[in-house]
Structures are given as structure tokens and as C-alpha cells.
């Protein structure tokens, strides 16, 4: 009886050539990789766009047109991320044996190069899984971590895309060879029962497509019935899903106070209007979407007073920036800023009705903001004050 030596253990660890499936191969990896790269690129760009919509940089004045823009970009963001999950799993499966390549022992230089490449692949795999897992959990409002989702999902996105670009640079000759070669070996037919690479490729694409079809109904209306795995089915009070209830936002007390009156602050002057006075003002009705960062969206018919009319009535310039303050006592986004290009648009409403009924409490009673092309979280509910801030 002796203790196992390092050599004994090494012998028990599989080697790349121990993996027998002939379906693996550069031809498959390169093809799945191209699809995965496209999904990641789309996801990254739409993600950057979403951050720009949350905090518009000065040089990019995002406006109310096109009305459905954020709905489309954020829907694409979530769906490209979902499509990437099966593609990533198949891609990792196709190269799994390479994990067991023994480090080169010929020279320190080779060892260093191998180490660097391994590190870049570690960064790529870690950040890719991180992005897809954190995004997937976030859309189900499940946050089993101690980091800030928004800041971390954004920072790690740069690591994921950066390490993907490094990976493409390193592997470019291999990718070209893989794409240039026929996907299956001409002698494939010698074993009629073997799984062909084409079969795996078609399976990976089918899985990505099915994953999209079975979840896209939360943003694509005609898929709603088919998307049995969507986080949202489009239903909710007044035919519209709710992201945060009045109870969760700590807004019940303020919102149901019979003494409620909206404050409109222009310069040093404050005008107050209760809900009946708001209802007595000229009303406008528009069909506008709620488009959430979590990738769900739905159009609804909103009736209320245009914010520009309220500002003008209080003596302000209807092309001003307006800060909106909510009665909610919990959670982020209690305050939002409507840039002047949104205030100017007569479709930017302080809504009082939704789909022909008075707003329900969870949709922002007594009044809420609804504007075209805005992330849902900036469509402030339970509004108590509008202030002209520039």
C-alpha cells in the first residue's frame, strides 16, 4: 500500500484523445462560434444602448422617436442573450477535451504563451457564463448575489467582449480553417450510426431558435400563447403586467391619501392640482408601450394630461427639462428626469387612465408618467411632483 504519486493522478486525468465523439471538431466549433459571436455582439450593442437610454450621454440626445425603439432594442437584448445560452453550451462541449491538454514542458516561453491563452479563455468562459446567468436570473427578478446587477452586468460585459475579441484574434487561422473545411468528414458514412457534426450544428441552432420562440411572447404579442416559458404572459391588472407593486415600492399610503394634490414647481412658484382638477383639464389619449429592461413589453392605451400642457399652465416653458418625483418610499428610481425633447412631445403624459379605466394602484394611481421610447423604470409611477429643472 503506497500513496498515489503525482504521476498516478496525472494518469487518471483524461487526455484530449480519450474523448471519442467524432462529432467534435474545429468545423463544428467555428460554425457554432460564429453564431455565438453574432449573438454576443448583438447583445453587447443593445446592452450599451440600454445604458445610454437610462443615462443619455450629452452627445447623444435620445428622443421620443421612434416610439417603439427601446421596446425593440431591449427585446433583442434579452432574446439574443437567451439564444446565446444553447450556443455557448454546445460550443463549450465541442472544445471540452482541450481543457485536458497537458501544459508544454519544452520551454518557459511556450509555457508562458499557453498560460496566457488559458487565462484569456478563462476570462472568456467566466465572463460569458456570468453575463448569461446574471441576465437570465435578473429577468425573473431573482437576485442571489451581493453585487449591484446593473453596474456589474455592465462592467463584466466589457470583459466578456474584450476576451471574445482576444479569442478571435488568437484563433483567427483556426476559425478560417474550420469554416473553410466541409463540416463532416467525407468518410462519415463508414459508421452510419455515428452522430454527424451537421446534426449537432442543426441541433444547436434549433435549440437557440426554440429557446427564443418559447420566451419571446413577453415582448412579441403574436407569440404570447406559444411562449409557455416566458417570465410574463402579458397579463396583469388592466391588461398590463406590473414590475413593482405599490406595496413593494412603499407607495400605498401616499397614493391612497384622499388629500393628494400634485405639485408643479416652476421657478419659485408651486401650483397644486388634485386628481379631479387634473381630470378636468384637456385630456389626451395615446397608445404607448411599457418596455422594461427585463425584456418584456406591451402596448397600452393611456389617457391623461400632456406634461407640456401642465408646465405651460403653471407658467413654464413647455420645452423644459422636468424632474419627476414619486411618492414611493422604497427602491431606486424614485425620481426621473424628463429631458426637454420628451416634455415637448405631446404624447408624454401624466396619465390618469389606463385602457379606459382609472389607473389601478399598482399601475401608479393617482397619476404616472408615460412617454414614448423610455425604459419602463423611468416611467415614474405615483407621481407627487413635477419640477422644471432647466
Amino acid at each position, binding site marked *: 500500500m503506497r500513496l498515489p504519486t503525482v504521476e498516478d493522478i496525472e494518469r487518471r486525468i483524461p487526455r484530449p484523445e480519450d474523448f471519442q465523439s467524432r462529432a467534435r471538431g474545429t468545423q463544428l466549433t467555428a460554425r457554432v462560434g460564429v453564431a455565438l459571436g453574432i449573438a454576443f455582439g448583438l447583445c453587447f450593442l443593445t446592452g450599451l444602448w440600454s445604458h445610454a437610454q437610462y443615462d443619455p450621454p450629452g452627445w447623444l440626445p435620445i428622443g421620443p422617436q421612434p416610439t417603439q425603439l427601446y421596446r425593440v432594442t431591449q427585446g433583442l437584448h434579452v432574446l439574443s442573450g437567451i439564444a446565446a445560452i444553447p450556443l455557448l453550451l454546445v460550443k463549450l462541449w465541442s472544445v471540452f477535451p482541450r481543457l485536458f491538454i497537458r501544459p508544454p514542458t519544452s520551454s518557459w516561453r511556450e509555457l508562458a504563451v499557453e498560460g496566457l491563452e488559458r487565462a484569456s479563455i478563462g476570462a472568456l468562459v467566466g465572463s460569458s457564463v456570468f453575463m448569461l446567468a446574471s441576465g437570465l436570473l435578473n429577468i*425573473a427578478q431573482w437576485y442571489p*448575489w451581493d453585487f449591484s446587477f446593473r453596474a456589474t452586468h455592465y462592467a463584466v460585459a466589457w470583459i466578456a467582449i474584450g476576451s471574445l*475579441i*482576444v479569442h478571435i484574434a488568437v484563433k483567427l487561422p483556426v476559425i478560417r480553417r474550420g469554416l473553410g473545411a466541409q463540416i463532416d468528414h467525407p468518410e462519415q458514412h463508414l459508421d*452510419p450510426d455515428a452522430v454527424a457534426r451537421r446534426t449537432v450544428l442543426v441541433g444547436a441552432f434549433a435549440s437557440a431558435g426554440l429557446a427564443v420562440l418559447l420566451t419571446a411572447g413577453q415582448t412579441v404579442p403574436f407569440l404570447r400563447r406559444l411562449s409557455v*416559458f416566458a417570465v410574463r404572459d402579458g397579463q396583469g391588472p388592466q391588461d398590463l*403586467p406590473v414590475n413593482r407593486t405599490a406595496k413593494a415600492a412603499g407607495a400605498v399610503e401616499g397614493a391612497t391619501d384622499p388629500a393628494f394634490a400634485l405639485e408643479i414647481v416652476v421657478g419659485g412658484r408651486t401650483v397644486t392640482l388634485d386628481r379631479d382638477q387634473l381630470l378636468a383639464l384637456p385630456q389626451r389619449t395615446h397608445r404607448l408601450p411599457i418596455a422594461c429592461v427585463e425584456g418584456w413589453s406591451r402596448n397600452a392605451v393611456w389617457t391623461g394630461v400632456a406634461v407640456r400642457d401642465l408646465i405651460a399652465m403653471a407658467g413654464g416653458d413647455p420645452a423644459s427639462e422636468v424632474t419627476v418625483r414619486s411618492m414611493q418610499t422604497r427602491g431606486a428610481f424614485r425620481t426621473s428626469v424628463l429631458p426637454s425633447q420628451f416634455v415637448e412631445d405631446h404624447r408624454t403624459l401624466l396619465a390618469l387612465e389606463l385602457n379606459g379605466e382609472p389607473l389601478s394602484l399598482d399601475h401608479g394611481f393617482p397619476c404616472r408618467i408615460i412617454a414614448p421610447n423610455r425604459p419602463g423604470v423611468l416611467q415614474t409611477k405615483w407621481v407627487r411632483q413635477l419640477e422644471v429643472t432647466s
Partner: protein
Amino acid sequence: MRAARFILGAIGVGFGLWGLWLMRDFTGQQLVSTGVWLAGGILVHDAVLAPVTVGLGVLASRLLPGHFRAATSVAFLLWATLTVVFLPVLSGQGGKPDNDSILNRPYLASWLVLTGVLAGAAIIAGLRRRAHASGAAATAED
């Protein structure tokens, strides 16, 4: 070509460093949690998901008749990857108890149907392949 690859690599390294720089104000707790999730993803894949998949593949190639191999592989690919995608909605976690407009579908029932359909499709495809193969063999003998 070499120069283009070099430039591409440099851009990638720059992007990655920018991502790290964005974390400069994270608290220790946030950094630890981020690190756990980054490393955890690699570990869960390389130490659990991938070995289990390879193990099942080896098992299937020993136990299943050849005719069923391709169909079973594709069905498993679809089933396993889709199950990963649907894990959050199947978990019963997430959402809030006072909000019934989220996670409001019978996900488990849908997943059982999906599992059944894929298993059924694999069996039917395998049987048809066997029938086809024995038919071809019979024709060859005639």
C-alpha cells in the same frame, strides 16, 4: 494578417481592462460576490455540466442500439440546453409574492410536456431508422 490580429488582440485587452476599471469603486463584498460568480460559472460548467454530459454520452454509446444514437443525442442536446435556459422559471425562485403578473405560468407542466415530446420524438426517430435499416437490409438480400 499578423498585424491585424495583433491590433484586434490589443483592442480586446483594452476592452477587458476598461471593464476592470469600471469595478474600481466596488466594495469588497461586491467584488467577492462578482468573483464567486465568475469562477463559479467556470466551475459549474467544467466540473459538473460537461463531465455529466460526457458521462451520459459514454453510457448511451454502450447501452443504446446504434439506431437510437443520433436521435437520442439531438433530443438530449435540445432537452439539456433548453432546461438550462428555463431553470430560473422552473426554480420557483424570483418574482414577488404580491405580484401575480410575473412568473404566472405552469412552467413545470410545460417542461414535463417538453421532456415527453423530446423523448417520444427520439424513440420514434430511432424506431423509424431501425425499420428503414432492416428494410434496406431485406432489399439488399433479395
